[in-house]
C-alpha cells in the first residue's frame, strides 16, 4: 500500500504556475527524496499534502485518505518539519512540545523526553532564544514525538551541525525500519543519495523523473577521455565534448569498456561511478537545452 499517492497534481496562483502534472508515490517504510532547485514546486507540493493550500487539479492521498477532505484525520498520524521553523516566539521549548503533544489523543511525553535528550535540546529556553539549528530540532521533536506513520520533512538538515545531521538520519532510518514512510525534500544530494530509496526530480513545477536509487547504487560509469578517436557504441553516450576532452556515460560490463577504450587510442582516461549529483545535473541540463 502506498503511504502517499500524488496523481496529476496542479496548483496555479492566479495565472502563474505552482506545480503541474506532479505524480509520484511513497511506499510504506520508504524514505523518498524530493529534489529540485529553489522555486521548483517542492514546498508547494508539500503544502498541498498538508492542506495549507488547495490544489487546482489532480488529487493526493495519504494512507488512501484525501488530503483536502480528510486532512484532520491524516494529521493524526503525520509529522511535519518545515524548512523555515516559525513557532510561537515567546513560548518555551517545553511548552511548545506540550502544546504539540496536546493535539494527539495519547500522551507522548516519554518519546518527547527521549528525542530531547537525543538532540540535546534545552527545554527551558524560549523559542526566540534558539539558534536556527535548535529551532529545527524543536520542529523535529514535535513532529516525531507523536510517533507518526508518515513524516514530511522540508529541508530538515538546514542549520543543523554535521553531528546532529547524522543523528537525525540515524533516527529517520530507525523510523523507516519501523514502517514510517518519509518524504524528504532536500537540496543536499549527498544525504538523499545516502538515505533515500527513490527520488523524484522536480523543475518548474513538473516532475522530470522518479529514479530508483538502487540504479545509482549500481551506477553507470562516467568516463572522461583526452585525445584519441571517438568511441561509438550503443552502450556509450557522449555527454559533452570540449576540444580533446570528452565525457561519456557508460552502461555495461567492464571488459567491454576496457576494450572500447583500448581501441580508441587515448592519451588519458578517468572512470568514475555516476553520482546523484551528475544524474541531477544531467536531467536539469537536458531541460535547459530544450
Amino acid at each position: 500500500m502506498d503511504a502517499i499517492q500524488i496523481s496529476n497534481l496542479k496548483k496555479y496562483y492566479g495565472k502563474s504556475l505552482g506545480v503541474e502534472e506532479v505524480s509520484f508515490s511513497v511506499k510504506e517504510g520508504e524514505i523518498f527524496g524530493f529534489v529540485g532547485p529553489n522555486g521548483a514546486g517542492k514546498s508547494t507540493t508539500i503544502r498541498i499534502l498538508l492542506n495549507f493550500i488547495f490544489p487546482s487539479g489532480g488529487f493526493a492521498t495519504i494512507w488512501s485518505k484525501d488530503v483536502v477532505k480528510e486532512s484532520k484525520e491524516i494529521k493524526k498520524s503525520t509529522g511535519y518539519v518545515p524548512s523555515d521553523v516559525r513557532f510561537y516566539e515567546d513560548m518555551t521549548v517545553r511548552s511548545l512540545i506540550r502544546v504539540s503533544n496536546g493535539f494527539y489523543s495519547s500522551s507522548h511525553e516519554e518519546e518527547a523526553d527521549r528525542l530531547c535528550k537525543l538532540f540535546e535540546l534545552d527545554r527551558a529556553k524560549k523559542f526566540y532564544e534558539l539558534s536556527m539549528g535548535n529551532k529545527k530540532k524543536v520542529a523535529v521533536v514535535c513532529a516525531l514525538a507523536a510517533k507518526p506513520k508518515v513524516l514530511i520533512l522540508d529541508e530538515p538538515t538546514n542549520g543543523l551541525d554535521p553531528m546532529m545531521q547524522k543523528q537525525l538520519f540515524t533516527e529517520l532510518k530507525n523510523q523507516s525500519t519501523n514502517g514510517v514512510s518519509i518524504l524528504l525534500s532536500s537540496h543536499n544530494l549527498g544525504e538523499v543519495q545516502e538515505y533515500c530509496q527513490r527520488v523524484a526530480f522536480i523543475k518548474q513545477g513538473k516532475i522530470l523523473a522518479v529514479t530508483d536509487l538502487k540504479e545509482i547504487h549500481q551506477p553507470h560509469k562516467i568516463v572522461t577521455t583526452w585525445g584519441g578517436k571517438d568511441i561509438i557504441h550503443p552502450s556509450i553516450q557522449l555527454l559533452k565534448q570540449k576540444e580533446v576532452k570528452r565525457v561519456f556515460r557508460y552502461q555495461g560490463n567492464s571488459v567491454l569498456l576496457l576494450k572500447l577504450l583500448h581501441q580508441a587510442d587515448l592519451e588519458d582516461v578517468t572512470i568514475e561511478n555516476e553520482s546523484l549529483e551528475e544524474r541531477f545535473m544531467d536531467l536539469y541540463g537536458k531541460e535547459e537545452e530544450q
Partner: protein
Amino acid sequence: MNVFRLELKNTWKNTLRWAIALSGITFTILAFFPSMQTESMKELTGAKMEGLDPALMEVMGLSELVDFTVITNFFGYVLQYITLAIMMLVTQLAVNSLVKEETDGTIEFLYSKSVSRSTILLQKTLANVFSFLSILVVLCIITVMGYLFYGDYNFAESIKEVVVFYSSILFVGLVFMALGVLLSTLLKSSKGSSGIVIAIVFGTFILGVMGVVIDDLSLLSYFSPMDWIKTQKLMTEGIKMEEWLVGILTILICYISAREVYKRKDLHS
C-alpha cells in the same frame, strides 16, 4: 480546547496591558467627578454648552443639556470615548487572530496538527471573547469602585448602572469582533491592518454622526453600533429592537461568512 488555551497564552500580556491602561483612565476620569460638582464648574460647563450649536451637541452625544453633576451623565459621556478605544482593541484582537499568525508563519504550527480550520476559527474567537469579557469585568469593578468613592450611589445602584453600561458595550464589541474575524479571513497580510481597524471603528462612528446631523440619512444610525449605546439613549430607551436585530444579524453573517472563507483559504507563504 488546545487552540483556545494557546490563543490566550499568546494574547494575555496584551490583554493585561489594555486592562491596566483602560482601568487607569476610567478611575482617573471618575476621580475628576467631585470637581464637576463645584458651583464654578457647574456655571462654566453650563455656559459653554449653552453656547454650542445643537448639531454639534448631537455629534458629541449630548442631545440635550446634560447635568454633569450627576455621575451617570458625567461618566456616561466620557465612557463613549473609552468605548471607542475598547472597540478598536476588540476589532484589532479579532483581525490579528488569524492574519497576524499567517503573516508571522506561526499558523503552520496549528495547520500541521489534527485540528480543522473551523475549530481553529471557533476556539480563537472564543478566546478573544474571553479576553474581551475579562477586560469588561475589570472595568466594571473599577467603575463600581469609582462610583462608590466619588459618587453618591450605593453599591446596588452602582452595580445596576455599571452592568447596563458594560453589557451594552459587550454587545457592540461582539459586533465589531465579528467584523474583525471576517476581515481576518479576507486579508492576505496583517500589514496595514491597524489602519483598516481604525477606518472601521471611526467609519461606523461617522455614519452615526451623519445619521444624527442629516435628517434624510437618519437610517444610517442603525449601522453605527456606537450610536446604539449613547448613554442618554441607553438610560432612557435602551438598545432598540431594530438595533438588536442588526447587531445579531451582523454577528451571524460575519461569522458564518468568515468560516466559509477560511475553510477554503490558501495559506500564503
